[in-house]
């Protein structure tokens, strides 16, 4: 049977339990005799029967090990089975509400007609928008308490519509209901247990019942017609199990791809062609489409990483941004002057968002600076300058809050400017900056690659969506370096003096590739034997000493930063600093380059060239002997005048 996950949200006491109990009863989804049993219990204890008691009764039962469970109730209509996901209304449980809602395809949002729009009505409305729930029906409940008065209904409807319009959420409908009485829940005759008819008490309401509305929801089908996107989740080679396939694994988030297609990996823009689609216990595939978990082998061995975004190559790759595309603005300061309302006009109207009109050759955005709308859940506020971890699709990078454009209280959407921090349960439009460029899309175009979470310490502290791209003149690394240099305590000796004394130019030399450490050590020995002062520092040495606190993926960039700082200290001391790494990408080498300035870094690749754009200063092929390698390195040092030629 077809299924749909549905979440029911709303302010505390606006009638969620009653609605759920009533839906279960009216659709005949309760265990046999349950309704009678609860009614009798109520009669015995001389208290009026409430549908909400049904939920409590189910909770009691489930704790005794019976299948129905209150956190995930099921009810069936003639059309399909609905799974109701638990979503508590109290603000303390907001993260539970988010967890529940982000697993749902549709939402029913309850507002008490008598109390009107409350804090969590607004907050939950905003969360549904941020989470990208596209099917929303607003139920104006407890119409019995306002004498089924149309004006009361219209008042709530108008108020709430105006609120939702601020961020462009358009519900499928507003339905006046009285959950306790069953008014407008189910249509006449469909469900024999239903106490309701087309409401005799609200003849002015001519729309559909709640169940009719949710039955009308169409499953958001897999985005197979959109441009192809697959965030690379991992790269596998199970050599120990005697499997030589190098498999690029991930789940296709949109579009489709075939064996033989040329693909590009962002942000590095490395290219290759799909050689095969791999799988276990499945027929051979030539095509793979959105939603499928897959593995590809490629025709060429290119160096890619988890977090890269795989896209299909088209002849004119550099054109074709959609009209909803990037705000290509020169600097964030200009963006700051744009009203926050722009974010809604820049199109987060979900229903029309994933437009089929997106040209297939739309390339992802890439860069280090982008504008987002985020919701902060962290116990401590989000502050400028602190390092956080960004998880966007399969990418994990260090991210900084660069600028707060505006902060809104999620329940009021009151906009505050000039804030220095984002506090718990607040929504902020802000600019984030990463050290390394990453590939992403705007949430309006692609959901999976346009939304993210932020990790503070060990906890997920925010969720958000990307609303724009920004260009920056100075990167975060450059800013960092300028601050470092400004506070550097200089000695009385100029580096020039040291270089003259040592008869060499201070340089950082970086070896990349399979034989990189062998080559690095070879060069160090060769230089020392010739009276130069060089020092080789391998990855393991950095990790076990200065990097002893290394942990997790965040630390990769921190490791690069520390390596860059070491390169800076050694070169500032006049030395030739040598390091090696099996793999470095262009962005990491860029960071090392900036951190080592004013001294140049020289990059020597060994074997398979893992770099994409950067041209290495020298290349040592696999088959080269040590003697030949020494020759290549000597020539490089002479050409770049690192060491006067006659010394070597």
């Amino acid at each position: 049977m077809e299924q749909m996950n549905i979440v029911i949200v709303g302010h505390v006491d606006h009638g969620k339990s009653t609605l759920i109990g009533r839906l279960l009863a009216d659709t005949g989804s309760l265990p046999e005799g349950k309704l009678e049993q609860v009614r009798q219990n109520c009669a015995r204890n001389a208290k009026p029967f409430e549908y909400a008691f049904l939920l409590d009764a189910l909770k009691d039962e489930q704790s005794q090990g019976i299948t129905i469970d209150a956190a995930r109730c099921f009810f069936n209509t003639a059309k399909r089975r609905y799974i109701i996901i638990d979503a508590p209304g109290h603000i303390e449980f907001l993260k539970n509400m988010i967890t529940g809602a982000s697993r749902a395809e549709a939402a029913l949002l309850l507002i008490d007609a008598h109390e009107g729009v409350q804090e969590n009505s607004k907050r939950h409305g905003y969360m549904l928008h941020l989470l990208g729930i596209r099917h929303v029906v607003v139920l104006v409940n407890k119409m019995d308490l306002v004498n089924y008065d149309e004006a009361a209904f219209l008042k709530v409807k108008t108020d709430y519509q105006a609120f939702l319009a601020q961020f462009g959420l358009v519900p499928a409908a507003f339905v006046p209901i009285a959950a306790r009485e069953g008014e407008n829940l189910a249509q006449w005759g469909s469900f024999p247990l239903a106490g309701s008819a087309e409401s005799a008490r609200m003849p002015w309401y001519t729309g559909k019942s709640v169940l009719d509305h949710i039955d009308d929801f169409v499953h958001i089908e897999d985005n197979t017609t959109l441009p192809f996107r697959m965030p690379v989740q991992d790269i596998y080679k199970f050599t120990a199990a005697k499997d030589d396939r190098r498999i690029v694994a991930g789940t296709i988030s949109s579009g489709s791809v075939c064996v033989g297609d040329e693909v590009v990996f962002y942000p590095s823009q490395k290219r290759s062609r799909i050689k095969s689609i791999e799988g276990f216990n499945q027929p051979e595939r030539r095509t793979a489409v959105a939603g499928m978990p897959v593995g590809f082998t490629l025709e060429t061995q290119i160096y890619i990483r988890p977090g890269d975004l795989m896209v299909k190559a088209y002849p004119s790759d550099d054109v074709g941004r959609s009209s909803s595309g990037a705000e290509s603005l020169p600097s964030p300061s200009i963006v700051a002057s744009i009203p926050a309302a722009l974010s809604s006009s820049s199109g987060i109207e979900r229903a029309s968002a994933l437009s089929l009109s997106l040209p297939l050759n739309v390339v992802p955005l890439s860069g280090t600076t982008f504008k987002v709308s985020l919701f902060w859940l962290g116990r401590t506020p989000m502050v400028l300058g602190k390092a956080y971890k960004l998880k966007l699709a399969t990418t994990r990078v260090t991210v900084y809050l660069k600028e707060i454009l505006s902060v809104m209280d999620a329940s009021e959407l009151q906009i505050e400017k000039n804030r220095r921090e984002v506090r718990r349960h607040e929504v902020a439009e802000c600019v984030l900056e990463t050290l390394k460029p990453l590939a992403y899309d705007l949430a309006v175009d692609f959901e999976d690659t346009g939304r993210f979470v932020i990790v503070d310490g060990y906890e997920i502290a925010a969720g958000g969506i990307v609303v724009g791209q920004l260009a920056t003149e100075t990167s975060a690394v450059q800013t960092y370096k300028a601050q470092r240099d400004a506070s550097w305590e200089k000695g009385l000796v100029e580096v020039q003096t040291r270089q003259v004394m040592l008869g060499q130019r201070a340089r950082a030399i970086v070896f990349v590739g399979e034989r990189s450490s062998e080559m690095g050590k070879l060069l160090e020995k060769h230089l020392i034997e010739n009276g130069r002062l060089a020092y080789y520092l391998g990855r393991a040495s950095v990790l076990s000493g200065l990097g002893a606190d290394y942990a997790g993926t965040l630390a990769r960039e921190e490791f690069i930063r520390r390596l860059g700082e070491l390169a800076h200290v050694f070169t500032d001391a006049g030395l030739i600093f040598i390091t090696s790494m099996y793999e470095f990408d262009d962005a990491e080498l860029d960071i090392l380059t900036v951190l080592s300035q004013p001294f140049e870094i020289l990059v020597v690749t060994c074997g398979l060239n893992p770099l994409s754009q950067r041209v290495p200063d020298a290349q040592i092929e696999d088959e080269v002997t040590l003697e030949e390698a020494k020759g290549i390195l000597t020539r490089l040092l002479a050409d770049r005048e690192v060491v006067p030629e006659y010394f070597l």
Partner: protein
Amino acid sequence: MAHLDKLEAQSVYIFREAYKDFKQLCMLWSIGKDSTVLLWLARKAFFGHVPFPLVHIDTSYKVPEMITYRDKFALEWNLNLVVGQNEAALKAKETFPDGKIDRIACCKALKANALKHTLSGEWPRKRMNHETRALEYDTHTDPYTGVIVGARADEEGSRSKERYFSPRDKQSDWDVGDQPPEFWNQFKTDFAPGTHVRIHPLLDWTELNIWEYIARENIPIISLYFDQGEGKRYRSLGCYPCTTPVESTATTVAEIVTELKSGKFANIAERSGRAQDKEDGGGLESLRREGYM
């Protein structure tokens, strides 16, 4: 996509996230249908391989056929099988079948404690040696920080509140009231030293989905689930002193699917044959907090 394909895709995604983010990862294998489907999904995720150890807690009261089945497939599928046991309790005969303690206390000793100390590496672990085809004491004693478990949300109350990635503190405790948010497909993969994370790739599956998938994939499943001619079969596998078979003549996966869909079991709880569930009046949550799977 069909519903089973979606479930499979989500499970595979969770497996790959776990494998990427946890250096000390393992998976619990109870030999039952759920954890065997879990094992199959791991092979889906990793293209036929299972690149982390499978931990089995042997209470010594498992139906013997379960152990035969376990070792057969461990060898056949090249699995890194790790077995843990509460050797002290068994030696001292501190068990329910020995009449010393009640069912719940027995579960706690032979399952929860054995699991906790096997995961932490404090108690000896045995590992399948594929050369000698026998279990040998393992020299590797690092604690596992990511533990993949085949729990399903529909099994019983406490499990419905689970996350896909569910943190446990130093005492293996589960704080039901304060769980991390899960936005879309972003999970909690960062954790403080000394804590660990339970990972639940099967959270969204129902008992029926499990059987439908076994049928679709033709997964070899232990014969205890089928009627052997006595009009009885196991619906849920556990220790033989505490698990009774149900009345059923289902001899094939297809017959089980029919039975669950429309037949006699459509409205009866899966674990109704597990005696310990009844004894404690819903107190599984307390055991679960302590690490009982």
